[in-house]
């Protein structure tokens, strides 16, 4: 079994850059330091980009793009490849003129400059952000032929900012205060109601990602971060937080981001991104090219806390074996799992199943459909299946 890496081999054979020859790049000087004061990837990596599914939305301004999970390593998503979701495009905000206003049921309403916010003691945490529509195209059947499109509305960065609780302490919440409205400064003025309990728990007001200031697509210069919750609640270009006694029921928590059940009623405030996982090697973009030992690798994540265990099935869920977690295992962060095994051309129905620290077990697609039907769009965290053919090709299938 196994596909011969033919393109690869033929190009190499014709080359004079291979041993025993001295490659051309060993016989000359390259460019010097600060030729690029801010560096860029190699030109040979130009295929590693965010991609969109054009038919998902009418145009690109209110749309989404996906991270190339099949090309990513470790748990950090580099800033240039973090998935995008905008409702009115990316605003170009002058940080000196950006303000965060906190008001409503508070003792003293305050307007903060970016400089003010950056004076507070900061915290830095590695957390994933996932769009609740991640995988949503697959509720009724397998539709997407690549990992980037089945799971790519997902990224993970080290975020730096101020715990929202510190800022709320500063304004002084009145006893009646129970919900917070967060609002963006972009043309969509995206707004979401956040229960005070979350705001006082682990919500952050964030200005940096992976060491540098937020990227424009990620809310520069300021965004909310609700760890483990649907990405939409982590309001970007954050300009206002109002404390109230009740939720606002705005468009993004009624018309959208509610989950329609078969009986015609819908779930509201479905915040948590439940425990999920997917195999990234092999996958449709990374077919198996050789027989022999292979590292089955993937990502697991849970909005409910830490990943405790990931299991792998080679037969579509009939039997399972435990995989190893590798690298950092952090709460509400991407976590890598790995299992070294052998492939000799046998067909596989590959699945991964994550379990979090609360004991929650990632459900099957059948279980999710039984509980929710096929119209709920969001929060599809079911066990995913890759079919590995005996030539090493990998396709997206669904098992019922």
């Amino acid at each position: 079994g196994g596909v011969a890496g033919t393109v690869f081999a033929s190009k190499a054979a014709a080359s004079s850059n291979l041993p025993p020859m001295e490659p051309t790049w060993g016989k000359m000087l390259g460019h010097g330091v600060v030729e690029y004061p801010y560096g860029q990837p190699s030109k040979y990596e130009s295929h590693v980009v965010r991609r969109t599914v054009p038919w998902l939305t009418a145009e690109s301004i209110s749309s989404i793009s996906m991270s190339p999970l099949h090309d990513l390593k470790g748990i950090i998503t580099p800033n240039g490849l973090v998935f995008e979701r905008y409702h009115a495009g990316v605003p170009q905000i002058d940080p000196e003129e950006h303000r965060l206003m906190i008001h409503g049921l508070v003792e003293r309403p305050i307007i903060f400059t970016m400089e003010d916010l950056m004076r507070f003691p900061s915290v830095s945490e590695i957390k994933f952000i996932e769009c609740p529509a991640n995988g949503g195209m697959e509720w009724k059947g397998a539709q997407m032929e690549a990992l980037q499109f089945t799971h790519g509305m997902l990224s993970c960065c080290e975020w730096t900012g101020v715990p929202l609780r510190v800022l709320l302490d500063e304004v002084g919440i009145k006893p009646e205060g129970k919900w917070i409205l967060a609002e963006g400064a972009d043309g969509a003025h995206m707004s979401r109601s956040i229960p005070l309990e979350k705001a006082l728990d682990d919500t952050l007001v964030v200005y940096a990602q992976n060491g540098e200031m937020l990227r424009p697509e990620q809310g520069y210069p300021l965004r909310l971060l609700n760890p483990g919750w649907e990405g939409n609640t982590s309001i970007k270009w954050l300009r206002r937080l109002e404390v109230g006694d009740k939720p606002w029921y705005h468009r993004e928590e009624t018309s959208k981001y509610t989950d329609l059940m078969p009986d015609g009623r819908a779930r509201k405030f479905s915040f948590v991104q439940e425990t999920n996982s997917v195999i990234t090697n092999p996958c449709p973009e990374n077919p198996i090219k050789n027989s022999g030992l292979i590292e089955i690798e993937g990502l697991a994540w849970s909005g409910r806390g830490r990943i405790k265990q990931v299991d792998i099935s080679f037969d579509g869920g009939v039997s399972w074996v435990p995989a190893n977690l590798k690298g950092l295992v952090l709460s509400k962060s991407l976590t890598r799992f790995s299992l070294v095994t052998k492939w000799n051309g046998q067909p596989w129905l590959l699945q991964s199943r994550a379990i979090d620290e609360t004991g929650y077990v990632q459900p099957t697609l059948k279980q999710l459909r039984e509980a929710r039907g096929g119209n709920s769009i969001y929060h599809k965290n079911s066990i995913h299946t890759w079919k590995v053919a005996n030539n090493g090709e990998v396709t997206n299938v669904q098992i019922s």
Partner: protein
Amino acid sequence: AEKFGFGKTATAEEIAGWDIDIRPDGLGLPPGEGSVSEGEALYEQLCATCHGLFGEGEGRWPVLAGGKGTLTEERPTKTVGSYWPYASTLFDYIRRAMPFTAPRSLTDEQVYHITAYVLYLNEIVDDEFVLTHENLAQIEMPNKDGFFVDPRPDAQNTRCMKDCADPKTMKIEGTLKGITPVGHFIEGADAPAASHEGQEELEREK
């Protein structure tokens, strides 16, 4: 704890300019009113190109009206009339985000007119209706009782390790072909495939 004391106290005027949110109970509504009839003209001028003369949605732009009774169907149509629980949401959203290309360009009065008209298109008010800051919270939306708080976790899987499914009854369904952007699988077509325009071109070439 001691306060840091950073930032400046917001004045009432500063807050008023940015405090645009409306709640179901009417909190936040600016004083004013608007009629279905005046709303019609404004809607046709500012909204219909995208959302259709009757709220039916042009092309792939959102549908605003119709769809009543479809929520239990195979392909539900979720609109203001069929799905939205509160009228306040409509006023709030139009004022904060529409028209798409010129958000925050409408006067409060215009928002009242247009909101009234979209409610009319959804058969929630009649053509004589005048929407005001006082009656908006009283409007009963058809699907007002259609929502309940997320009860997850709902699906209960267990950590079965052996004989967890029956291979004989297993049904395997493949991917619908021709629907994924696959431009980037084509040699040399990587960068354009990532964009809407580039992708459309590649899809056409297929």
